[in-house]
């Protein structure tokens, strides 16, 4: 008798507890439904219509997707531009961040100051940085070409030459590679010292120690940086919008027309919302596939301490 009373009291307590749990989670649940799940479903449906936000919303089947793949050269152009940016900038930024971390992973006087200096550029972003680099890269008044001329290189026209605009953006991104450095530093410092001592006993030199001890131990972080770098890289937008020649987004010759910029202009300049949302879903698919590929590949080369997962 007493036991049932106690347990029913316990279960009502648990119910109250659970109820409170939902109250605490509710802001996120409501936000998820309103700002993520709802919009996702709506945009999936709208991607099969000719929606233009004001008047029409007719079902047109696969037509947006057909236009995208078969009748919109700018779609392919923007995809190629984005791929170029991702393929060049992600490895360079990853390597750059790792290099900075390896250099800074020492206990010497003043190291904190150097870490601060190396990290500083990465906290700066937005239009201020873009304008700064537009000046640095300007062929007439720019510092970059001046410095190149000191070593006998005749610098390119950067943001005015369609063949060089993306490299200009990539150069700017490498300046901020120190942002990745911190993660590498943390993981470099977590490599157990015994491993190095064991390797030294086996007669390994500096390079071999790095290759056979350090690198395997920090692969999880490298992996993380590559995945997030690629996903982030695919979403590049502002640089193409702001740094376009003559204040013209994507210019010159659409060489800075990145995928999201094309989508943005479709949605907010010509109000072809249905088409833009089809593009958005295709982007979602790309990011999903990238993540899955990365996860699959990681099994072959990411070393997780503590064995299989």
């Amino acid at each position: 008798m007493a036991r049932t009373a106690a347990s029913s009291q316990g279960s009502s307590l648990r119910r109250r507890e659970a109820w409170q749990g939902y109250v605490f989670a509710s802001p996120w649940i409501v936000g998820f439904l309103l700002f993520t799940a709802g919009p996702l479903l709506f945009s999936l449906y709208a991607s099969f219509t000719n929606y233009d936000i004001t008047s029409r919303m007719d079902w047109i089947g696969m037509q947006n997707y057909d236009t995208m793949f078969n009748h919109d050269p700018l779609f392919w152009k923007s995809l190629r531009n984005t791929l170029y940016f991702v393929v060049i900038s992600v490895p360079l930024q990853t390597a750059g961040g790792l290099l900075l971390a390896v250099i800074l992973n020492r206990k010497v006087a003043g190291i904190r100051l150097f870490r601060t200096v190396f990290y500083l550029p990465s906290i700066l972003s937005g239009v201020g940085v873009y304008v700064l680099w537009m000046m640095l890269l300007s062929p007439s008044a720019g510092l970059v070409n001046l410095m190149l001329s000191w070593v006998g290189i005749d610098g390119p026209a950067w943001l005015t030459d369609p063949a060089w605009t993306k490299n200009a953006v990539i150069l700017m991104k490498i300046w901020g590679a120190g942002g990745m450095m911190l993660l590498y530093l943390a993981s470099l410092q977590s490599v157990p010292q015994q491993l190095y001592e064991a390797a030294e006993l086996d007669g390994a030199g500096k390079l071999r120690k790095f290759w056979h001890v350090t690198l395997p131990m920090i692969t999880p972080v490298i992996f993380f940086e590559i995945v997030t770098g690629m996903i982030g890289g695919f979403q590049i937008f502002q640089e193409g919008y702001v740094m376009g020649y003559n204040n013209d987004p994507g210019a010159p010759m659409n060489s800075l027309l990145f995928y999201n910029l094309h989508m943005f202009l479709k949605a907010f300049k010509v109000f072809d919302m249905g088409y833009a949302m089809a593009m958005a879903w295709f982007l979602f698919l790309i990011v999903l596939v990238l993540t899955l590929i990365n996860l699959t590949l990681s099994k072959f080369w990411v070393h997780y301490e503590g064995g299989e997962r």
Partner: protein
Amino acid sequence: MSLLAAQEQARLKKLSTPQRKVRSKWGAVLLYAIMIALGLLLLTPLFWMLSTSLKSMQEIMSYPPTLFPKVIHFENYQHAWEKGNFGRYTLNTLFLAGVGVFSHVLSNTFVAYGFAKIRFPGKKLLFSVMLGTMMIPSFVTLIPQYILFSKLAWINTYYPLTVPGFFGSAFQIFLIRQFFMTIPNELIEAGKVDGASHYRIWWQLMLPLSLPVIATVAIMTFQGAWNDFTGPLIYINSESLFNLQIGLQSFKGTESTQWHYLMAGSVIVLLPVVLLFFFFQRYFIEGMNITAGTKG
């Protein structure tokens, strides 16, 4: 034989020890040389921005270029500040950042408490859905969100830029939850025995214990609001509502290649972030480390 070999080895070691020291001394010199060279290279753009912002246009175009301005033209800042209307944009940005920090700290600590310290059915599922949403590219929901807000007649108001903050953001909830998990459950139990509700425990116990992570989240949000470009770009049309990013973008449109004014504008927009970084460096780095601790 083996004794001889050992002796030989010891002799070699003796020989090599001082040499190694010398080498490591040179190594240190080399290390500092590399670090200083790289550091200077990375700081050059910022130095050049500052220097250019104080020059006359004539001096900027002169060849060979000067490292420091011959005459310091502080009036460039005055010109940028007035013509660029940066006073207005700074106030707007501070307002947006203030609301952002308040809403994010409030909602994300609240939700994180539920996920960290209360048991309820479906919690695991909800939590993994939340982690999954972090993978969705922001542009996928950007357009339908715009449509939603335009149906609510929220275009050209601050509502689309502020209201969503009160509904939590997955990454920050995750970050705070990781921190809350390190606070012992016994503390919560003790609070309950004293008759405190979860709400009171969240407000009076957890929040004061979580100041480091709150600072991290606050700085992250502030920086995000300060640098927000896409949001104001699509939602704001009136010049009087521009934030600093959009303001600088439009200033850039009017000044084209007047680099001295443009650099003054850039300094105005970037300097507060640099100062924030120097004062609160720990929390910038803390945020990165919490992120680092979550995979591995």
